């Protein structure tokens, strides 16, 4: 895991780098593609390529410690009788019990509830730990329908119909046999120890017209009480968002290619989907053209790490964001405390991504009872709450600097781009110019 090279005369190939050589050798040895967790690791244009234009003469800033900058968001105002109100625009993305330990799910619920935001279930259904600790719980409705039952559906505060995921748009999930414990097998109605394949298409609808009827069914079953989200992986985002709105979504969840996963082929993670930053303007345009921007809320995920990312996503048109990988890191994932054990697994703290193996030293992406016990849900929940507060404060800091009394008042006009790629994707001017590639001015 080092780039140090003692002999400066040695020249590494840009095309066949050491990582590429290692992967070819691994494929040749094993005959199977690489499966891993986490999200895209390649460098793609991201929020770091954007900057805010703070107020000066032509704009008036707000006092950092005196003047209020609102952060609350109401989700599901279009049709639901009971929309969800969250106190920070940072929500917790869908992650399954199965992929994560029960302790990790409980910790996510504790942390999110402490700061007044929502968590989301995943494949495999709703656990008592999660429902018990999450004051606002979004129930995912997935193609596999593992653990899906109407009692839990009626207990949920919102329903998220999952069409795709940023890490693998067009692909289903997989939970390899080593993570199928007794409890996971029972919840999913599968034999222990087998590879659990999650379908990539829903079993009882095809296309947006069918989806409209499916949404109507879910509304009928829940008596139109709770919001219905549609989650899509970022690809043809402009069209997907339009179809989601047409089908009757209250909220669109948009997951960019940096979004994480518990287990998928590396080739899928790195080569399918578009960067989060490139997808948001497409979604915002679709919502604006249909006259429902801010009425149908947009939740964006995929590579959100700090308050700057939160503020930039909102400025580009999101109403809220969702975090997955960052939340797991806040709980304790990839912590240097377990460096020795990561090394034994052939990895290192900061690199560990073999979530599918179920050997997570931090007790997060595992079903091993001994490893799971390492994670104290109360302490981990507290760390998550701390982190959520920090990134909310950071986003407020940036918004106040731009003179905004609410995060939602941020707008593309507050942003510039550092390079041409980011300017074209985010549809904001290159810094110091009024040039947005691809647009007339």
């Amino acid at each position, binding site marked *: 895991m080092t780039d140090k090279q003692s002999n400066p005369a040695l020249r590494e190939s840009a095309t066949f780098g050491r990582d590429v050589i290692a992967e070819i050798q691994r494929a040749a040895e094993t*005959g199977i593609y690489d499966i891993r967790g986490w999200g895209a690791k390649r460098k793609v244009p991201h929020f770091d390529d954007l900057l805010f234009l703070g107020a000066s003469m032509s704009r008036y800033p707000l006092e950092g410690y005196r003047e209020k900058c609102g952060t609350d968001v109401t989700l599901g105002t279009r049709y639901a009788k009971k929309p969800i109100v969250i106190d920070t625009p940072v929500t917790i993305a869908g992650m399954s019990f199965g992929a994560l330990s029960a302790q990790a799910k409980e910790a996510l619920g504790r942390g999110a509830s402490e700061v007044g935001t929502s968590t989301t279930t995943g494949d495999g259904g709703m656990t008592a730990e999660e429902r018990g600790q999450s004051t606002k719980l979004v129930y995912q409705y997935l193609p596999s329908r593992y653990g899906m039952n109407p009692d839990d559906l009626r207990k949920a505060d919102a329903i998220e119909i999952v069409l795709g995921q940023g890490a693998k748009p067009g692909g289903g999930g997989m939970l390899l046999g080593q993570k199928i414990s007794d409890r996971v097998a029972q919840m999913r*109605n599968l034999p222990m120890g087998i590879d659990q394949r999650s*379908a990539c298409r829903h*079993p*009882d609808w095809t296309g947006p017209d069918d989806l409209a009827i499916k949404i109507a069914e879910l509304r009928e*079953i829940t*008596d139109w009480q709770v919001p219905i989200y549609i989650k899509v992986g970022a690809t043809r985002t402009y069209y997907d968002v339009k179809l989601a709105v047409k089908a009757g979504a209250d909220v669109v969840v948009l997951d960019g290619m940096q979004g994480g996963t518990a287990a998928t082929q590396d080739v899928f993670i790195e080569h399918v989907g578009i960067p989060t930053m490139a997808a948001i303007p497409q979604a915002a345009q679709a919502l604006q053209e249909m006259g429902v921007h801010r009425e149908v809320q947009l939740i964006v995920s995929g590579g959100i790490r700090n308050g700057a990312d939160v503020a930039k996503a909102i400025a580009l048109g999101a109403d809220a964001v969702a975090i997955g990988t960052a939340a797991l890191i806040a709980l304790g994932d990839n912590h240097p405390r377990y460096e020795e054990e990561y090394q034994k697994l052939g990895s290192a703290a900061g690199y560990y991504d073999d979530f599918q193996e179920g050997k997570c030293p931090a007790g997060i992406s595992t079903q091993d009872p001994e490893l799971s016990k390492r994670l104290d849900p109360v302490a981990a929940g507290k760390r998550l709450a701390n982190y959520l507060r920090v990134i909310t404060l950071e986003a407020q800091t940036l918004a106040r600097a731009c003179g905004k009394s609410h995060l939602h008042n941020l707008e593309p006009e507050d942003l510039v781009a550092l390079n041409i790629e980011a300017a074209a994707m985010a549809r904001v001017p290159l810094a110091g110019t009024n040039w947005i590639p691809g647009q007339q001015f």
Partner: protein
Amino acid sequence: MKTYDLSSDSLRELNQALHDADITASEREWRVANPNGAHNIACGLNDAISVDIDGHAGYYCAGMNQKANVTVHGNVGVGVAENMMSGMVHVKGDASQSAGATAHGGLLVVDGNASARCGISMKGVDIVVKGNIGPMSAFMGQSGCLVVCGDAGEALGDSIYEAHIYVKGSVTSLGADCIEKEMRQEHLDEVSDLLKRAGVETDPAAFKRYGSARQLYNFKVDNASAY
């Protein structure tokens, strides 16, 4: 018997009333007149009531049913009794695609034929089809029984887990990892019981059993061509 007429009453009023435990505590028998193919009729029921639908129903009729006994005196659209947990759904006519999809329990009886993907991803439901079923039926079927008195289409039981499939007629083709299996006494008893519950008089010994070869349960590169 409480009657809702969907030519004048709204679907929302009907479903809301069917969900209201205070109402269903005293009204145990319901009739839906003039369904006219409406979608989502009697979905999300959670009480041991009986509902008769006098005519054709659209998508997701009796979806996610729990405890209730729903009879459709006509044909149904896509996803009848999808994700049913318990109770019984009886279709007197034909059923469209994905009948009983992902259902965890209860009994679904189709007097006519069922189209493609019947019992897709079934998770414990029992399904009896008196006629034929379409292609890709019981795809990824996890548990429960699919009994077919007629013929089955292509790729029956593709990627099946532990669901039991019994077919009396012909099978066009079997899907990946689905094989014909020995019909032992326990299976004859299982078919006999389901036929009796569905009101079908036929010899259980005339059925063949199909299920998982369990060769694709864990990924092996040698099986790559099967995926």
